[in-house]
Protein backbone atom coordinates (compact mmCIF):
# COMPACT_ATOMS: atom_id res chain seq x y z
CA UNK A 1 0.00 0.00 0.00
CA UNK A 2 1.41 3.38 -0.99
CA UNK A 3 1.56 6.12 1.59
CA UNK A 4 -1.08 8.82 1.22
CA UNK A 5 0.03 12.11 -0.31
CA UNK A 6 -3.14 14.16 -0.01
CA UNK A 7 -4.58 16.51 -2.61
CA UNK A 8 -3.51 20.13 -2.46
CA UNK A 9 -4.09 21.74 -5.83
CA UNK A 10 -4.20 25.30 -4.52
CA UNK A 11 -1.05 24.83 -2.43
CA UNK A 12 -2.96 25.48 0.77
CA UNK A 13 -0.01 24.01 2.62
CA UNK A 14 1.49 27.48 2.36
CA UNK A 15 -1.34 28.79 4.52
CA UNK A 16 -0.67 26.31 7.30
CA UNK A 17 1.79 26.82 10.12
CA UNK A 18 4.72 24.47 10.62
CA UNK A 19 2.92 22.95 13.61
CA UNK A 20 -0.30 22.41 11.67
CA UNK A 21 1.59 20.62 8.90
CA UNK A 22 3.47 18.48 11.40
CA UNK A 23 0.26 17.53 13.14
CA UNK A 24 -1.37 16.67 9.81
CA UNK A 25 1.63 14.58 8.76
CA UNK A 26 1.78 12.78 12.09
CA UNK A 27 -1.87 11.74 11.86
CA UNK A 28 -1.41 10.83 8.20
CA UNK A 29 1.48 8.53 9.12
CA UNK A 30 -0.49 7.03 11.97
CA UNK A 31 -3.39 6.26 9.61
CA UNK A 32 -1.04 4.77 7.01
CA UNK A 33 0.74 2.61 9.59
CA UNK A 34 -2.02 1.54 11.93
CA UNK A 35 -5.39 2.01 10.26
CA UNK A 36 -4.99 1.13 6.60
CA UNK A 37 -3.68 -2.39 7.29
CA UNK A 38 -6.70 -3.30 9.44
CA UNK A 39 -9.59 -1.15 8.31
CA UNK A 40 -10.89 -3.38 5.55
CA UNK A 41 -11.19 -6.36 7.92
CA UNK A 42 -12.74 -4.16 10.58
CA UNK A 43 -15.35 -3.01 8.12
CA UNK A 44 -16.03 -6.51 6.80
CA UNK A 45 -16.27 -7.92 10.33
CA UNK A 46 -18.52 -5.11 11.59
CA UNK A 47 -16.03 -4.27 14.30
CA UNK A 48 -14.52 -1.05 15.61
CA UNK A 49 -10.70 -1.37 15.70
CA UNK A 50 -10.57 -0.68 19.44
CA UNK A 51 -6.91 -1.67 19.65
CA UNK A 52 -5.98 1.80 18.35
CA UNK A 53 -7.78 3.73 21.10
CA UNK A 54 -4.76 3.90 23.46
CA UNK A 55 -2.64 5.30 20.61
CA UNK A 56 -5.35 7.86 19.78
CA UNK A 57 -5.09 8.98 23.39
CA UNK A 58 -1.33 8.89 23.57
CA UNK A 59 -0.96 11.01 20.44
CA UNK A 60 -3.42 13.53 21.86
CA UNK A 61 -6.14 13.14 19.22
CA UNK A 62 -9.05 12.93 21.68
CA UNK A 63 -10.56 16.31 22.57
CA UNK A 64 -7.51 17.79 20.88
CA UNK A 65 -8.98 21.32 20.65
CA UNK A 66 -9.88 21.56 24.35
CA UNK A 67 -7.73 23.38 26.89
CA UNK A 68 -6.47 21.82 30.10
CA UNK A 69 -7.34 18.46 31.69
CA UNK A 70 -4.59 16.72 29.67
CA UNK A 71 -6.03 17.88 26.33
CA UNK A 72 -3.75 19.13 23.56
CA UNK A 73 -5.31 22.62 23.22
CA UNK A 74 -4.92 22.83 19.42
CA UNK A 75 -6.27 25.55 17.16
CA UNK A 76 -9.25 24.79 14.93
CA UNK A 77 -7.30 24.25 11.73
CA UNK A 78 -5.02 21.70 13.37
CA UNK A 79 -8.10 20.02 14.83
CA UNK A 80 -9.78 20.03 11.42
CA UNK A 81 -6.70 18.56 9.75
CA UNK A 82 -6.78 15.71 12.27
CA UNK A 83 -10.39 14.98 11.32
CA UNK A 84 -9.53 15.14 7.62
CA UNK A 85 -6.70 12.64 8.00
CA UNK A 86 -8.68 10.28 10.21
CA UNK A 87 -11.61 10.21 7.82
CA UNK A 88 -9.23 9.66 4.92
CA UNK A 89 -8.72 6.36 6.74
CA UNK A 90 -12.35 5.67 7.57
CA UNK A 91 -15.44 7.66 8.58
CA UNK A 92 -15.96 5.23 11.46
CA UNK A 93 -12.62 6.14 12.95
CA UNK A 94 -13.35 9.85 12.60
CA UNK A 95 -16.80 9.29 14.08
CA UNK A 96 -15.23 7.70 17.15
CA UNK A 97 -12.95 10.68 17.64
CA UNK A 98 -15.74 13.20 16.89
CA UNK A 99 -18.07 11.64 19.41
CA UNK A 100 -15.42 11.34 22.08
CA UNK A 101 -14.08 14.88 21.62
CA UNK A 102 -16.94 16.96 20.21
CA UNK A 103 -19.97 15.27 21.75
CA UNK A 104 -18.73 13.99 25.11
CA UNK A 105 -15.60 15.85 26.20
CA UNK A 106 -16.74 19.23 24.83
CA UNK A 107 -20.03 19.34 26.79
CA UNK A 108 -18.34 18.15 29.98
CA UNK A 109 -15.67 20.81 29.44
CA UNK A 110 -18.23 23.51 28.72
CA UNK A 111 -21.21 22.62 30.90
CA UNK A 112 -19.80 20.31 33.57
CA UNK A 113 -18.79 20.95 37.17
CA UNK A 114 -15.14 21.04 38.18
CA UNK A 115 -15.52 17.59 39.76
CA UNK A 116 -17.00 16.17 36.55
CA UNK A 117 -14.20 17.67 34.48
CA UNK A 118 -11.51 16.26 36.76
CA UNK A 119 -13.16 12.88 36.92
CA UNK A 120 -13.92 12.37 33.23
CA UNK A 121 -11.76 14.54 30.97
CA UNK A 122 -8.24 13.18 31.61
CA UNK A 123 -9.52 9.60 31.30
CA UNK A 124 -11.37 10.37 28.07
CA UNK A 125 -8.37 12.31 26.68
CA UNK A 126 -6.06 9.37 27.33
CA UNK A 127 -8.48 6.90 25.72
CA UNK A 128 -8.69 4.95 28.98
CA UNK A 129 -12.39 5.73 28.99
CA UNK A 130 -14.80 5.86 26.02
CA UNK A 131 -17.86 8.09 25.79
CA UNK A 132 -21.09 8.14 23.79
CA UNK A 133 -23.72 10.81 23.14
CA UNK A 134 -27.36 9.82 23.32
CA UNK A 135 -29.72 12.31 21.71
CA UNK A 136 -31.56 10.48 18.91
CA UNK A 137 -34.51 8.26 19.76
CA UNK A 138 -36.33 5.66 17.68
CA UNK A 139 -39.13 8.16 16.96
CA UNK A 140 -37.17 11.41 17.21
CA UNK A 141 -34.27 11.96 14.84
CA UNK A 142 -34.38 15.25 12.99
CA UNK A 143 -36.69 16.57 15.68
CA UNK A 144 -34.88 15.90 18.97
CA UNK A 145 -37.03 18.50 20.73
CA UNK A 146 -39.83 15.94 20.71
CA UNK A 147 -37.82 13.38 22.70
CA UNK A 148 -39.62 11.26 25.27
CA UNK A 149 -36.72 10.07 27.42
CA UNK A 150 -37.38 11.58 30.81
CA UNK A 151 -35.61 12.35 34.06
CA UNK A 152 -37.48 12.63 37.34
CA UNK A 153 -36.14 14.28 40.47
CA UNK A 154 -36.17 11.81 43.35
CA UNK A 155 -34.44 13.12 46.45
CA UNK A 156 -30.69 12.86 45.97
CA UNK A 157 -30.98 11.18 42.55
CA UNK A 158 -32.59 11.39 39.14
CA UNK A 159 -34.46 8.48 37.59
CA UNK A 160 -34.12 8.06 33.83
CA UNK A 161 -36.56 6.25 31.55
CA UNK A 162 -36.54 5.93 27.78
CA UNK A 163 -34.63 4.62 24.76
CA UNK A 164 -31.95 6.08 22.54
CA UNK A 165 -31.08 4.73 19.10
CA UNK A 166 -28.25 4.99 16.55
CA UNK A 167 -25.77 5.85 19.26
CA UNK A 168 -22.14 5.72 18.14
CA UNK A 169 -19.85 3.94 20.66
CA UNK A 170 -22.94 3.00 22.73
CA UNK A 171 -22.03 -0.59 23.68
CA UNK A 172 -18.35 0.13 24.17
CA UNK A 173 -18.80 3.35 26.15
CA UNK A 174 -17.75 3.69 29.79
CA UNK A 175 -19.86 6.82 30.14
CA UNK A 176 -22.98 7.92 28.25
CA UNK A 177 -24.00 11.55 27.97
CA UNK A 178 -27.76 11.18 27.76
CA UNK A 179 -30.16 13.96 26.93
CA UNK A 180 -33.53 13.69 28.65
CA UNK A 181 -36.40 15.95 29.66
CA UNK A 182 -36.50 17.12 33.27
CA UNK A 183 -39.67 19.09 33.93
CA UNK A 184 -40.09 19.53 30.18
CA UNK A 185 -36.56 20.96 29.65
CA UNK A 186 -33.81 19.04 27.80
CA UNK A 187 -30.91 18.38 30.19
CA UNK A 188 -27.70 16.33 29.95
CA UNK A 189 -26.92 13.44 32.32
CA UNK A 190 -23.75 11.39 32.72
CA UNK A 191 -24.53 7.71 33.10
CA UNK A 192 -21.66 5.37 33.93
CA UNK A 193 -21.49 1.91 32.43
CA UNK A 194 -22.83 -0.69 34.83
CA UNK A 195 -25.40 1.62 36.42
CA UNK A 196 -28.42 -0.47 37.31
CA UNK A 197 -31.29 0.08 34.86
CA UNK A 198 -28.98 1.08 32.01
CA UNK A 199 -28.34 -1.41 29.21
CA UNK A 200 -27.26 -1.34 25.55
CA UNK A 201 -27.89 -3.38 22.40
CA UNK A 202 -25.61 -3.41 19.40
CA UNK A 203 -27.31 -2.48 16.15
CA UNK A 204 -26.37 -4.84 13.35
CA UNK A 205 -27.14 -5.29 9.66
CA UNK A 206 -25.52 -1.96 8.74
CA UNK A 207 -23.94 -1.51 5.33
CA UNK A 208 -22.39 1.79 6.38
CA UNK A 209 -19.97 2.81 9.12
CA UNK A 210 -19.40 -0.85 9.89
CA UNK A 211 -16.05 -0.09 11.53
CA UNK A 212 -17.95 1.95 14.13
CA UNK A 213 -20.17 0.59 16.89
CA UNK A 214 -23.79 1.77 16.71
CA UNK A 215 -26.13 0.93 19.58
CA UNK A 216 -29.42 1.37 21.31
CA UNK A 217 -29.38 2.62 24.88
CA UNK A 218 -32.14 1.56 27.27
CA UNK A 219 -33.03 3.26 30.53
CA UNK A 220 -35.45 1.54 32.83
CA UNK A 221 -35.82 3.26 36.18
CA UNK A 222 -32.13 4.04 35.93
CA UNK A 223 -31.12 5.88 39.08
CA UNK A 224 -28.14 8.23 38.90
CA UNK A 225 -26.69 10.58 41.52
CA UNK A 226 -27.79 14.21 41.33
CA UNK A 227 -24.17 15.20 40.78
CA UNK A 228 -24.33 13.59 37.32
CA UNK A 229 -26.38 16.34 35.69
CA UNK A 230 -24.53 18.79 33.44
CA UNK A 231 -25.61 21.86 35.33
CA UNK A 232 -24.53 24.37 32.70
CA UNK A 233 -26.75 23.05 29.88
CA UNK A 234 -30.46 23.85 29.93
CA UNK A 235 -32.63 23.34 26.85
CA UNK A 236 -32.05 22.16 23.28
CA UNK A 237 -29.20 24.65 22.90
CA UNK A 238 -27.02 22.32 25.01
CA UNK A 239 -26.96 19.35 22.63
CA UNK A 240 -27.08 21.63 19.59
CA UNK A 241 -23.89 23.41 20.69
CA UNK A 242 -22.19 19.99 20.83
CA UNK A 243 -23.46 19.16 17.36
CA UNK A 244 -21.93 22.39 16.07
CA UNK A 245 -18.54 21.15 17.31
CA UNK A 246 -18.92 17.72 15.79
CA UNK A 247 -20.31 19.06 12.50
CA UNK A 248 -17.28 21.29 12.21
CA UNK A 249 -15.13 18.15 12.36
CA UNK A 250 -17.36 16.41 9.83
CA UNK A 251 -16.94 19.24 7.32
CA UNK A 252 -13.18 18.65 7.49
CA UNK A 253 -13.48 14.88 7.70
CA UNK A 254 -15.65 14.52 4.61
CA UNK A 255 -12.95 16.18 2.54
CA UNK A 256 -10.55 13.52 3.81
CA UNK A 257 -12.85 10.81 2.44
CA UNK A 258 -13.17 12.70 -0.82
CA UNK A 259 -9.39 13.00 -1.11
CA UNK A 260 -8.97 9.27 -0.58
CA UNK A 261 -11.51 8.54 -3.33
CA UNK A 262 -10.08 11.10 -5.73
CA UNK A 263 -6.48 9.96 -5.30
CA UNK A 264 -7.54 6.36 -5.85
CA UNK A 265 -9.49 7.31 -8.97
CA UNK A 266 -6.66 9.45 -10.30
CA UNK A 267 -4.17 6.60 -10.04
CA UNK A 268 -6.61 4.10 -11.47
CA UNK A 269 -7.44 6.35 -14.42
CA UNK A 270 -3.80 6.58 -15.46
CA UNK A 271 -3.06 2.87 -15.14
CA UNK A 272 -6.23 1.11 -16.31
CA UNK A 273 -6.06 0.45 -20.04
CA UNK A 274 -9.18 0.10 -22.20
CA UNK A 275 -9.37 0.52 -25.96
CA UNK A 276 -5.53 0.51 -25.86
CA UNK A 277 -5.33 3.68 -23.78
CA UNK A 278 -5.43 4.62 -20.13
CA UNK A 279 -9.07 5.39 -19.32
CA UNK A 280 -7.81 8.76 -18.06
CA UNK A 281 -7.28 9.74 -21.68
CA UNK A 282 -11.02 9.79 -22.36
CA UNK A 283 -12.77 13.12 -21.96
CA UNK A 284 -15.65 11.73 -19.92
CA UNK A 285 -13.22 10.34 -17.36
CA UNK A 286 -11.26 13.58 -17.31
CA UNK A 287 -14.43 15.50 -16.62
CA UNK A 288 -15.17 13.30 -13.63
CA UNK A 289 -11.67 13.88 -12.26
CA UNK A 290 -11.83 17.62 -12.95
CA UNK A 291 -15.14 17.89 -11.07
CA UNK A 292 -13.74 15.94 -8.14
CA UNK A 293 -10.65 18.08 -7.77
CA UNK A 294 -12.67 21.28 -8.14
CA UNK A 295 -15.09 20.32 -5.38
CA UNK A 296 -12.31 19.09 -3.09
CA UNK A 297 -10.45 22.36 -3.51
CA UNK A 298 -13.59 24.39 -2.79
CA UNK A 299 -14.30 22.27 0.27
CA UNK A 300 -10.75 22.76 1.54
CA UNK A 301 -11.11 26.52 1.21
CA UNK A 302 -14.43 26.46 3.07
CA UNK A 303 -12.82 24.47 5.86
CA UNK A 304 -9.85 26.78 6.22
CA UNK A 305 -12.05 29.85 6.43
CA UNK A 306 -14.47 28.12 8.78
CA UNK A 307 -11.55 27.40 11.11
CA UNK A 308 -10.48 31.03 11.03
CA UNK A 309 -14.04 32.07 11.91
CA UNK A 310 -14.09 29.55 14.74
CA UNK A 311 -10.80 30.73 16.21
CA UNK A 312 -11.83 34.37 16.01
CA UNK A 313 -15.14 33.64 17.74
CA UNK A 314 -17.20 34.64 14.70
CA UNK A 315 -18.36 31.18 13.62
CA UNK A 316 -22.10 30.60 13.76
CA UNK A 317 -23.96 27.29 13.68
CA UNK A 318 -25.21 28.34 10.24
CA UNK A 319 -21.65 28.72 8.95
CA UNK A 320 -21.05 25.14 10.05
CA UNK A 321 -24.28 23.94 8.45
CA UNK A 322 -23.19 25.31 5.09
CA UNK A 323 -19.85 23.52 5.25
CA UNK A 324 -21.23 20.23 6.59
CA UNK A 325 -23.98 20.21 3.98
CA UNK A 326 -21.73 21.11 1.08
CA UNK A 327 -18.70 19.01 1.93
CA UNK A 328 -20.53 15.82 2.78
CA UNK A 329 -22.75 16.13 -0.27
CA UNK A 330 -19.74 16.49 -2.54
CA UNK A 331 -17.74 13.83 -0.77
CA UNK A 332 -20.55 11.38 -1.42
CA UNK A 333 -20.85 12.49 -5.06
CA UNK A 334 -17.08 12.10 -5.48
CA UNK A 335 -17.13 8.68 -3.86
CA UNK A 336 -19.93 7.54 -6.18
CA UNK A 337 -18.18 8.95 -9.21
CA UNK A 338 -14.87 7.33 -8.20
CA UNK A 339 -16.70 4.06 -7.60
CA UNK A 340 -18.04 4.26 -11.13
CA UNK A 341 -14.64 5.12 -12.55
CA UNK A 342 -13.13 2.00 -11.01
CA UNK A 343 -15.59 -0.24 -12.86
CA UNK A 344 -16.05 -3.68 -11.32
CA UNK A 345 -13.02 -3.13 -9.11
CA UNK A 346 -14.98 -0.29 -7.53
CA UNK A 347 -17.37 -2.69 -5.83
CA UNK A 348 -14.61 -4.61 -4.05
CA UNK A 349 -12.67 -3.90 -0.90
CA UNK A 350 -9.45 -4.03 -2.92
CA UNK A 351 -9.95 -0.28 -3.13
CA UNK A 352 -11.15 2.03 -0.34
CA UNK A 353 -13.67 3.84 -2.52
CA UNK A 354 -16.69 1.58 -2.00
CA UNK A 355 -16.17 1.68 1.76
CA UNK A 356 -16.03 5.48 1.76
CA UNK A 357 -19.12 5.65 -0.42
CA UNK A 358 -21.08 3.44 1.95
CA UNK A 359 -19.81 5.27 5.01
CA UNK A 360 -20.76 8.65 3.63
CA UNK A 361 -24.41 7.56 3.44
CA UNK A 362 -24.34 7.74 7.24
CA UNK A 363 -22.36 10.94 7.33
CA UNK A 364 -24.90 12.70 5.11
CA UNK A 365 -27.65 11.56 7.49
CA UNK A 366 -26.24 11.99 10.97
CA UNK A 367 -25.55 15.28 12.72
CA UNK A 368 -28.44 16.83 10.82
CA UNK A 369 -29.47 15.35 7.50
CA UNK A 370 -28.57 17.17 4.30
CA UNK A 371 -32.09 18.57 4.08
CA UNK A 372 -32.21 19.67 7.70
CA UNK A 373 -29.11 21.76 6.96
CA UNK A 374 -30.89 23.07 3.87
CA UNK A 375 -33.69 24.22 6.17
CA UNK A 376 -31.23 25.77 8.62
CA UNK A 377 -29.74 27.78 5.76
CA UNK A 378 -33.20 28.60 4.41
CA UNK A 379 -34.14 29.90 7.84
CA UNK A 380 -30.94 31.96 7.99
CA UNK A 381 -31.49 33.43 4.53
CA UNK A 382 -35.20 34.27 4.79
CA UNK A 383 -35.70 34.56 8.51
CA UNK A 384 -38.57 32.08 8.10
CA UNK A 385 -38.26 28.67 9.78
CA UNK A 386 -39.63 25.83 7.65
CA UNK A 387 -38.97 22.85 9.88
CA UNK A 388 -42.61 22.24 10.72
Amino acid sequence: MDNFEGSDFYILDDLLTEEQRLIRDTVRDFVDDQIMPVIEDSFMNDRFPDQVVPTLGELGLLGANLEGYDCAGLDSTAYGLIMQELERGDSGLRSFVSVQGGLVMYPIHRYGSEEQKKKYLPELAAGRSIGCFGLTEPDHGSNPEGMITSAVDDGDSYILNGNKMWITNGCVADVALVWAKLDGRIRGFLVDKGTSGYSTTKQGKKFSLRASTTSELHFQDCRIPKDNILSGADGLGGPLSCLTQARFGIAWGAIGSAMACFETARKYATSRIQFDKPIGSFQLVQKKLADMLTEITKGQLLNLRLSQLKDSGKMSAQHVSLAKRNNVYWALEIARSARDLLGANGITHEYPVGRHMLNLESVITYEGTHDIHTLILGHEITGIPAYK
Partner: protein
Amino acid sequence: MKIAVCMKRVPDTATRLTFAADGKSVDTSEVQWVISPYDEYAIEEGLRIRERAGEGTVTAITVGPEGASKELRQALGMGVDDGILAVCDEPLDPIQTARSLVAILADRADDIVLFGKQAVDSQGAQVGALVARLLGRPFVNDIAAIEVSEQQVRIERDIEGGRETIEGPLPIIVGAEKSLNEPRYPKLKDIMQAKKKPIEKVTPQTGEPSFETVAVTTPAPRPEGRIVGEGPEAVDELIRLLREEAKVI
Protein backbone atom coordinates in the same frame (compact mmCIF):
# COMPACT_ATOMS: atom_id res chain seq x y z
CA MET B 1 25.10 12.15 28.56
CA LYS B 2 25.43 14.60 25.69
CA ILE B 3 23.95 13.38 22.45
CA ALA B 4 23.74 14.90 18.98
CA VAL B 5 21.68 13.59 16.09
CA CYS B 6 22.45 14.77 12.56
CA MET B 7 19.42 14.62 10.31
CA LYS B 8 18.49 15.56 6.79
CA ARG B 9 15.20 16.43 5.20
CA VAL B 10 14.44 14.46 2.04
CA PRO B 11 11.50 14.32 -0.37
CA ASP B 12 8.70 12.08 0.92
CA THR B 13 9.09 8.69 -0.72
CA ALA B 14 5.48 8.97 -1.89
CA THR B 15 6.24 12.15 -3.88
CA ARG B 16 6.52 11.82 -7.63
CA LEU B 17 9.74 13.59 -8.52
CA THR B 18 10.42 15.50 -11.70
CA PHE B 19 13.69 16.96 -12.86
CA ALA B 20 14.25 20.68 -12.99
CA ALA B 21 14.73 22.50 -16.29
CA ASP B 22 18.51 22.74 -15.75
CA GLY B 23 18.82 18.96 -16.16
CA LYS B 24 21.01 18.79 -13.06
CA SER B 25 18.63 18.80 -10.15
CA VAL B 26 15.24 17.72 -8.90
CA ASP B 27 12.29 20.10 -9.09
CA THR B 28 11.47 20.63 -5.44
CA SER B 29 8.67 23.16 -5.83
CA GLU B 30 5.92 20.63 -5.05
CA VAL B 31 7.88 18.25 -2.90
CA GLN B 32 6.62 17.20 0.52
CA TRP B 33 9.60 16.96 2.86
CA VAL B 34 10.15 14.43 5.60
CA ILE B 35 12.98 13.43 7.91
CA SER B 36 15.08 10.84 6.12
CA PRO B 37 13.79 7.54 7.56
CA TYR B 38 17.18 6.27 8.82
CA ASP B 39 17.63 9.57 10.63
CA GLU B 40 14.34 8.93 12.43
CA TYR B 41 15.86 5.76 13.87
CA ALA B 42 18.85 7.83 14.93
CA ILE B 43 16.60 10.38 16.68
CA GLU B 44 14.60 7.66 18.40
CA GLU B 45 17.77 5.95 19.61
CA GLY B 46 19.20 9.24 20.87
CA LEU B 47 16.03 9.74 22.90
CA ARG B 48 16.16 6.19 24.25
CA ILE B 49 19.80 6.52 25.27
CA ARG B 50 18.92 9.71 27.14
CA GLU B 51 15.88 8.06 28.73
CA ARG B 52 17.86 5.00 29.84
CA ALA B 53 20.62 7.20 31.24
CA GLY B 54 18.01 9.18 33.13
CA GLU B 55 19.81 12.42 32.30
CA GLY B 56 21.37 14.29 29.43
CA THR B 57 20.36 16.21 26.34
CA VAL B 58 19.69 15.39 22.72
CA THR B 59 20.37 18.04 20.08
CA ALA B 60 19.14 17.65 16.49
CA ILE B 61 21.37 19.24 13.86
CA THR B 62 20.63 19.77 10.20
CA VAL B 63 22.18 21.57 7.27
CA GLY B 64 19.49 22.86 4.94
CA PRO B 65 17.23 25.75 3.96
CA GLU B 66 15.07 27.74 6.41
CA GLY B 67 12.16 25.41 5.63
CA ALA B 68 14.03 22.51 7.21
CA SER B 69 13.04 23.95 10.57
CA LYS B 70 9.80 21.97 10.10
CA GLU B 71 11.71 18.70 10.28
CA LEU B 72 13.70 19.98 13.24
CA ARG B 73 10.39 20.82 14.95
CA GLN B 74 9.26 17.28 14.33
CA ALA B 75 12.37 16.02 16.11
CA LEU B 76 11.68 18.47 18.94
CA GLY B 77 8.11 17.17 19.03
CA MET B 78 9.45 13.64 19.43
CA GLY B 79 11.35 14.80 22.50
CA VAL B 80 14.67 16.23 21.32
CA ASP B 81 15.77 19.12 23.58
CA ASP B 82 17.03 21.67 21.07
CA GLY B 83 17.92 22.10 17.41
CA ILE B 84 20.64 23.67 15.31
CA LEU B 85 19.99 24.68 11.72
CA ALA B 86 22.93 25.53 9.50
CA VAL B 87 21.03 27.60 6.97
CA CYS B 88 22.00 26.84 3.40
CA ASP B 89 19.87 27.07 0.28
CA GLU B 90 22.43 25.61 -2.10
CA PRO B 91 22.75 21.86 -2.63
CA LEU B 92 25.98 20.69 -1.01
CA ASP B 93 28.22 17.80 -1.81
CA PRO B 94 28.94 15.38 1.06
CA ILE B 95 32.27 16.89 2.13
CA GLN B 96 30.67 20.32 2.39
CA THR B 97 27.86 18.98 4.55
CA ALA B 98 30.42 17.14 6.67
CA ARG B 99 32.52 20.29 7.15
CA SER B 100 29.44 22.27 8.15
CA LEU B 101 28.52 19.66 10.74
CA VAL B 102 32.08 19.41 12.03
CA ALA B 103 32.14 23.17 12.62
CA ILE B 104 29.13 22.69 14.89
CA LEU B 105 30.18 19.42 16.53
CA ALA B 106 33.85 20.15 17.15
CA ASP B 107 33.37 22.11 20.39
CA ARG B 108 30.28 20.36 21.70
CA ALA B 109 31.99 17.38 23.31
CA ASP B 110 29.14 14.96 22.58
CA ASP B 111 29.43 11.49 24.01
CA ILE B 112 27.55 10.10 21.05
CA VAL B 113 26.74 11.51 17.62
CA LEU B 114 24.10 9.59 15.70
CA PHE B 115 23.45 9.63 11.97
CA GLY B 116 21.16 7.56 9.77
CA LYS B 117 23.19 4.97 7.91
CA GLN B 118 22.51 6.93 4.73
CA ALA B 119 20.07 9.54 3.41
CA VAL B 120 17.35 8.03 1.27
CA ASP B 121 17.57 10.72 -1.41
CA SER B 122 21.24 10.79 -2.37
CA GLN B 123 22.01 7.33 -0.90
CA GLY B 124 25.64 8.39 -0.53
CA ALA B 125 26.32 6.96 2.97
CA GLN B 126 29.26 9.33 3.24
CA VAL B 127 28.51 12.11 5.68
CA GLY B 128 28.72 10.13 8.93
CA ALA B 129 32.05 8.64 7.96
CA LEU B 130 33.45 11.96 6.74
CA VAL B 131 32.46 13.71 9.96
CA ALA B 132 34.07 10.96 12.03
CA ARG B 133 37.25 11.24 9.98
CA LEU B 134 37.40 15.03 10.32
CA LEU B 135 36.75 14.85 14.06
CA GLY B 136 39.14 11.93 14.53
CA ARG B 137 36.51 9.85 16.32
CA PRO B 138 35.62 6.19 15.76
CA PHE B 139 32.64 5.45 13.49
CA VAL B 140 30.37 2.42 13.34
CA ASN B 141 27.75 2.29 10.62
CA ASP B 142 24.61 0.14 10.24
CA ILE B 143 24.11 -0.36 13.95
CA ALA B 144 21.23 -2.62 15.00
CA ALA B 145 21.52 -2.15 18.78
CA ILE B 146 23.48 0.06 21.12
CA GLU B 147 23.96 0.03 24.87
CA VAL B 148 25.81 2.74 26.71
CA SER B 149 27.25 2.28 30.19
CA GLU B 150 29.62 4.66 31.94
CA GLN B 151 32.19 5.45 29.27
CA GLN B 152 31.71 2.22 27.30
CA VAL B 153 29.45 1.29 24.38
CA ARG B 154 28.36 -2.11 23.22
CA ILE B 155 27.08 -2.20 19.67
CA GLU B 156 25.44 -4.91 17.61
CA ARG B 157 25.48 -4.99 13.83
CA ASP B 158 23.65 -7.27 11.44
CA ILE B 159 26.18 -8.90 9.21
CA GLU B 160 25.74 -11.46 6.48
CA GLY B 161 24.35 -14.57 8.16
CA GLY B 162 24.75 -13.36 11.73
CA ARG B 163 25.24 -10.61 14.24
CA GLU B 164 28.43 -8.93 15.33
CA THR B 165 28.90 -7.43 18.78
CA ILE B 166 31.60 -4.87 19.37
CA GLU B 167 32.65 -2.83 22.37
CA GLY B 168 34.64 0.34 22.74
CA PRO B 169 34.99 3.64 24.58
CA LEU B 170 33.07 6.89 24.15
CA PRO B 171 32.95 9.26 22.38
CA ILE B 172 31.70 7.58 19.26
CA ILE B 173 29.84 8.29 16.04
CA VAL B 174 27.29 5.80 14.75
CA GLY B 175 24.97 5.30 11.78
CA ALA B 176 21.50 3.83 12.44
CA GLU B 177 20.08 0.83 10.59
CA LYS B 178 16.33 0.27 10.55
CA SER B 179 16.44 -2.76 12.84
CA LEU B 180 17.55 -0.39 15.62
CA ASN B 181 14.09 0.59 16.88
CA GLU B 182 10.54 1.69 16.04
CA PRO B 183 10.44 5.52 16.04
CA ARG B 184 7.68 7.08 18.14
CA TYR B 185 5.06 9.46 16.76
CA PRO B 186 5.43 12.98 18.08
CA LYS B 187 2.57 13.72 20.46
CA LEU B 188 0.40 16.64 19.37
CA LYS B 189 0.93 18.46 22.63
CA ASP B 190 4.67 18.05 22.26
CA ILE B 191 4.51 19.42 18.71
CA MET B 192 2.85 22.53 20.12
CA GLN B 193 5.36 22.76 22.94
CA ALA B 194 8.21 22.31 20.48
CA LYS B 195 7.47 25.89 19.45
CA LYS B 196 9.02 26.98 22.71
CA LYS B 197 12.16 24.89 22.32
CA PRO B 198 15.16 26.72 20.85
CA ILE B 199 16.41 26.31 17.30
CA GLU B 200 19.75 28.02 16.86
CA LYS B 201 20.54 29.20 13.35
CA VAL B 202 24.15 29.25 12.22
CA THR B 203 25.99 29.99 9.00
CA PRO B 204 27.50 26.82 7.63
CA GLN B 205 31.21 26.57 6.95
CA THR B 206 31.01 24.53 3.81
CA GLY B 207 34.29 25.21 2.05
CA GLU B 208 34.61 24.45 -1.63
CA PRO B 209 32.78 21.53 -3.25
CA SER B 210 34.77 18.55 -4.50
CA PHE B 211 32.31 17.49 -7.11
CA GLU B 212 29.65 19.10 -9.17
CA THR B 213 26.51 17.38 -10.42
CA VAL B 214 26.53 17.88 -14.17
CA ALA B 215 23.44 15.90 -15.17
CA VAL B 216 20.63 13.80 -13.81
CA THR B 217 18.66 11.62 -16.17
CA THR B 218 15.79 9.17 -15.93
CA PRO B 219 16.50 5.50 -16.54
CA ALA B 220 15.72 4.23 -20.02
CA PRO B 221 12.09 3.06 -20.19
CA ARG B 222 11.73 -0.64 -19.50
CA PRO B 223 10.91 -2.75 -22.53
CA GLU B 224 7.28 -3.80 -22.60
CA GLY B 225 6.34 -7.04 -20.89
CA ARG B 226 4.91 -10.01 -22.70
CA ILE B 227 2.27 -12.49 -21.54
CA VAL B 228 3.40 -15.98 -22.44
CA GLY B 229 0.15 -17.74 -21.63
CA GLU B 230 -2.01 -18.63 -18.67
CA GLY B 231 -1.96 -21.31 -15.97
CA PRO B 232 0.25 -24.40 -15.77
CA GLU B 233 0.33 -24.80 -19.57
CA ALA B 234 2.44 -21.65 -19.84
CA VAL B 235 5.18 -22.87 -17.53
CA ASP B 236 7.17 -24.83 -20.11
CA GLU B 237 7.20 -21.95 -22.54
CA LEU B 238 8.16 -19.53 -19.75
CA ILE B 239 11.10 -21.70 -18.74
CA ARG B 240 12.21 -22.00 -22.34
CA LEU B 241 12.15 -18.23 -22.77
CA LEU B 242 13.93 -17.57 -19.49
CA ARG B 243 16.63 -19.99 -20.59
CA GLU B 244 17.01 -19.21 -24.23
CA GLU B 245 15.95 -15.61 -24.63
CA ALA B 246 16.53 -13.92 -21.29
CA LYS B 247 19.34 -16.32 -20.37
CA VAL B 248 18.69 -15.86 -16.66
CA ILE B 249 18.33 -19.51 -15.67
